[in-house]
């Protein structure tokens, strides 16, 4: 049981860290970088990167993090679980739920809209397409990045507490 608890919490933390690092890099690198580009590069670049993001590695992190964190909570809720570890894992789960909610409400619709604008060479008003997308995307991205890094931090502390309890 202890092995299963430790293993699940360990892999949950790795996937959560990768998810956090992913969003963090968009915040400090991808969006500022594309942000400084001309409208055509911005739209073409974001479309291309967004098409590539639906890949098994990304999905393993994005979906694996909440799934494994959920299992970690359940395993710690049993009789030989540790309540402190359980609550820190639960905090991580709630914070990551915020990330998913923001992604579904804000980012996925905006991404879909940008893709629907079609081939950048055929778009009449690139600046307008970009304007409807960029500011709102970036603003909410900062919020979900903070929530995701905080969720990651909660799991790191849960690992220390797990070590203390076992």
């Amino acid at each position, binding site marked *: 049981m202890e092995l299963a608890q430790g293993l699940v919490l360990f892999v949950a933390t790795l996937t959560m860290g990768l998810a956090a690092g992913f969003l963090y890099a968009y915040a400090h690198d991808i969006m500022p970088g594309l942000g400084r580009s001309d409208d055509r590069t911005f739209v073409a670049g974001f479309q291309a990167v967004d098409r590539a993001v639906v890949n098994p590695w990304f999905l393993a992190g994005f979906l694996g993090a909440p799934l494994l964190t959920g299992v970690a909570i359940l395993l710690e809720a049993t009789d030989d679980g540790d309540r402190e570890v359980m609550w820190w894992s639960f905090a991580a789960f709630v914070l990551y739920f915020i990330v998913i909610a923001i992604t579904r409400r804000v980012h996925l619709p905006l991404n879909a809209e940008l893709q629907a604008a079609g081939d950048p060479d055929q778009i009449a008003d690139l600046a307008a397409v970009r304007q409807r997308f960029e500011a709102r995307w970036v603003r909410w991205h900062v919020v979900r990045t903070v929530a995701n890094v905080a969720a990651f*931090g909660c799991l790191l502390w849960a690992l220390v507490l797990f070590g203390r309890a076992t």
Partner: protein
Amino acid sequence: MTREGLQAAALVLATMTMGLITGAFALYAHTVMPGLSDTDDRTFVTAFQELDRSIINPWFMAGGFIGALVFTALAAGLHIGGAARTVLPWIVAALVLYLIAVVITIGVEVPVNDDLKAAGDPDQIANLATVRNDFDETTWARWNVVRTLTSLAAFGCLAWSLVRHGRVAASTEGR
């Protein structure tokens, strides 16, 4: 702060920054490079130049690339001697694995990144395809996968050392 508190703080920060930098490398491996590889030469060169310019920022440096190195080294130093020394091999392993990623970055990736930026404004470049070809995105991507894997292994070693650290702390407190 007690020595145990300092050790825990350094180790948490090391693991956090290592996770963030690994996520950044992985993002380039599974999304950015495959995505940009499908774009025309002008988009590729412009986008990569701008991404490379903007990555030199304090969040990336302190919260990732340099931070992971400094905090891991600090965590290793704080775990020398005493009961905590059983954690040390895992932190040292992480440090060595991450050093490989740093060497690849400075030795392989940064020089070609600099060459691409030195090609200048894409609108003034006569032959974009040649510039893109010289950059050699296939080789860049291959080495990026290597540094992603060594960083991921370092991240795993640090996450495990958090558990070990907790165990040592509990045993020295007589719990």
